[in-house]
């Protein structure tokens, strides 16, 4: 019975923790909403100014406006990819508003990584278009890729470089001058807790450290949009909280984040909008509130992903073999 008591006390602690987190999230949401309102006002002012001066308007005009007036920084239409005979992504449409965190969730093998690879220009799609802030990733990659910071999943890094060399490399490849890169390396490493690790070879990093370094490399050129594939995988909770804070500030300043994750809890807490992808198709998409309906996001997700398999006939597990 000890076991049950311990479990209950742990559950109780979790409840307290979750409440606290939710309170935090609510506070953050309020701040974000305020920032959004400010951003919208600024955008409206900019649009007015732009209509007055046509030569400046090119940039804002090319990006189409959403129903609610806010700019769609990422538009995906009919994106599809086949590997041999298996369809990885079967015609996906996505719209991501500027200044939001957009979550992509789905079961293993649903096509999340394939989708994000095609969005970032790393994998050539069979069909469909990806428009990033008015530039087509596959027609005008120079303009589109400049707007994006990318954290791919399961791709190597140049791991024979030290952490600082890799960040420098990423910054310079993105066209930043050396002084700026050096300055940003210092700031990124202290906010990601990488100070100790920068002098070591990336090959000797732990998985979580590698993830944080990749994330820092994705941010270094201050892109308009971040595309992060599983950014919190194997990252410890403290670092994850730091990263979330960095992302929230970035979004409050008008940046956009598209991220994928397995953790519903995290998506629900962090994201403004979400798309549920199953077997290469978007089954639900919209604000977190709209998608989850009355239950939790996890319930909705499990329902859409084919439901829980019934746990029957496992009685043998309840009597131990020794």
């Amino acid at each position: 019975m000890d076991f049950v008591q311990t479990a209950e006390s742990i559950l109780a602690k979790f409840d307290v923790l979750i409440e606290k987190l939710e309170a935090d999230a609510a506070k953050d949401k309020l701040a974000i909403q305020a920032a959004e309102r400010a951003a919208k006002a600024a955008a409206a002012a900019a649009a007015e100014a732009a209509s007055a001066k046509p030569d400046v308007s090119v940039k804002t005009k090319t990006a189409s406006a959403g129903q609610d007036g806010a700019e769609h920084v990422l538009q995906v239409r009919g994106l599809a990819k086949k590997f041999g005979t298996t369809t990885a992504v079967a015609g996906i449409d996505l719209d991501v508003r500027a200044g939001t965190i957009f979550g992509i969730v789905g079961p293993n093998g649903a096509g999340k990584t394939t989708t994000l690879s095609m969005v970032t220009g790393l994998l050539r799609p069979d069909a469909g278009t990806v428009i990033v802030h008015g530039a087509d990733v596959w027609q005008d990659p120079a303009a589109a890729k400049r707007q994006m910071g990318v954290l791919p999943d399961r791709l190597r890094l140049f791991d024979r470089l030290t952490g600082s060399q890799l960040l420098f490399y990423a910054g310079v490849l993105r066209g930043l001058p050396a002084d700026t890169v050096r300055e940003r390396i210092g700031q990124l490493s202290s906010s990601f807790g990488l100070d100790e690790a920068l002098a070591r070879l990336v090959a000797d990093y732990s998985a979580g450290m590698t993830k944080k370094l990749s994330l820092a490399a994705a941010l270094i050129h201050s892109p308009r949009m971040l595309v992060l594939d599983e950014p919190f995988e194997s990252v410890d909770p403290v670092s994850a909280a730091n990263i979330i804070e960095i992302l929230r500030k970035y979004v409050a300043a008008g940046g956009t984040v598209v991220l994928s994750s397995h953790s519903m809890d995290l998506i629900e807490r962090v994201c403004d909008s979400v798309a549920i992808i199953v077997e290469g198709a978007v089954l639900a998409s919209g604000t977190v509130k709209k998608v989850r309906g009355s239950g939790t996001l996890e319930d909705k997700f499990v329902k859409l992903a084919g439901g829980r398999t019934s746990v029957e006939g496992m009685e043998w597990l309840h009597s131990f073999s020794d």
Partner: protein
Amino acid sequence: MVAQFLGLKLRLLGNLFRRSPWQVFGMVVGLLYGLGAAFACVVGLVALRLADVELARSIVVVAGSLIVLGFLVVPLVFGADDTIDPRKFSLLGIPNGRLAAGLAAAAFIGVPALVLMIIAAAQVVTWSRSGPAAAFAVVSAVLLVVTGILGARVTTTVATLLLATRRAREATGLIALVVLSALSPLIAAMVTVDWQKQGLAVLHSIADVAAWTPLGAVWAAPALAAAGEMGPATGALAIAVGFVVLLWLAWRGLIAVMLVSPERVSRTRAYTGLGWFARLPATPAGAIAARSLSYWGRDPRYRSALVIVPIVPAVMIGALTIAGVPLHLLVLLPVPVMCFFLAWSTVHNDVAYDNTAVWLHVAANTDGRADRLGRVVPPLALGIIVIAVGTPLSAWAFGSADVVPSILGVSLCTLLVGLGLSSVISAGFPYPAVHPGDSPFAQPQSSAGAASWVQGLSLLGVLAVTAPTVFLAILGIAEGGGWHIAALLVGTATGIAALWGGIWLGGLVFDKRGPELLAFTAKY
């Protein structure tokens, strides 16, 4: 338990055939290669049935000792891929003795074991001269297979235990290279022995020693029995049995250690500052050059290519001297040959060496020309150093300063043309390369087909473009005068044109095929 392990090994072997066609092709080549070697041994051993006992003994013992040595050393040096690492079974709670027996039994399934069994059986034919000799040969055959396979398992396990860290793994590859190059004097000594006169005496004396080592005893026992020396034959057999028992004990002990020892954690070294990145311009091309330079210095795959560079001309000169080419002409070869290998060895497949890390270039939309140019910098710098140091030395050894322009022309031409062509090839025709962090010798099997034609074609290309310069240089050596200057001018001009064109064209290909290159590296 043993049956389950055998089943597992068979399943693993069968699954190898379900991979990509290239990998299956590579495996079939490996199998044919093994069977071919076994067949050659069988022919030799059967032929020795008719030979004089003393001669047959010496040949079998020396060759046999080498085979057993190979089984012991090859996994240690090449870092065999251990599909049934004992550690993988540590969570199953199998008693140590049964696990050792099961894993050892499973080791007898595979191409090396098959080859060894065929050779062991053929060795019985050699000694089927009398009843006792044949009986000894049969026992030896069994011991032989067990010694080879169990020995290989023991050394593989020792290797995985000791070489678990990245740094240690990388070090062994380099040590192996150094050992190989250190062996070349020995090979030279072997070459200088007058085999027709002293060959047999040397062979017999080696065999006399080898017969009483664990490597050779198992081969010597039936030979001694055939010669009628039953006492020594029994002694040799005892040594062989003792060795097998030792191997078995070592194997059991190793498994016990393996099951409780976690993978080793390496001590990491701290680097200060940005290294090459601080010294080169902060442009994409400069950063890529700095990255390449760091890799040439740190990555064993590049370093092993560097170690080869001085060895190749040394071996070439050695071989050609024996063939009777005058030495004062041969001294002209090293500089161009080293330039050629610098320009070609890794650069022509550089993108595959990056593996999927090249995504960073694709995601940043890096200009293809900057990418090509950056990758060319380390070999170009090294090549220029080689030319600057080597040209005066070569001319001095040749005995005339007149050839300096020709050496310069041909060397520059091979260096620049090689780099230019490599720039196109590495963007257009990558083939599977050793993965970052793997041993420099662990060439992926799948590379067999694609690699050879890409290599062959690019080699031919370099030769074709440098041919005019080489021709002018030869004219210069034969007739002297202005031909040397012509070789310098033509060589420099074709070199610069080829490098510029290669970087331009390669850059174009890289820009166009960036995502496809990334997809290629992700596939292997």
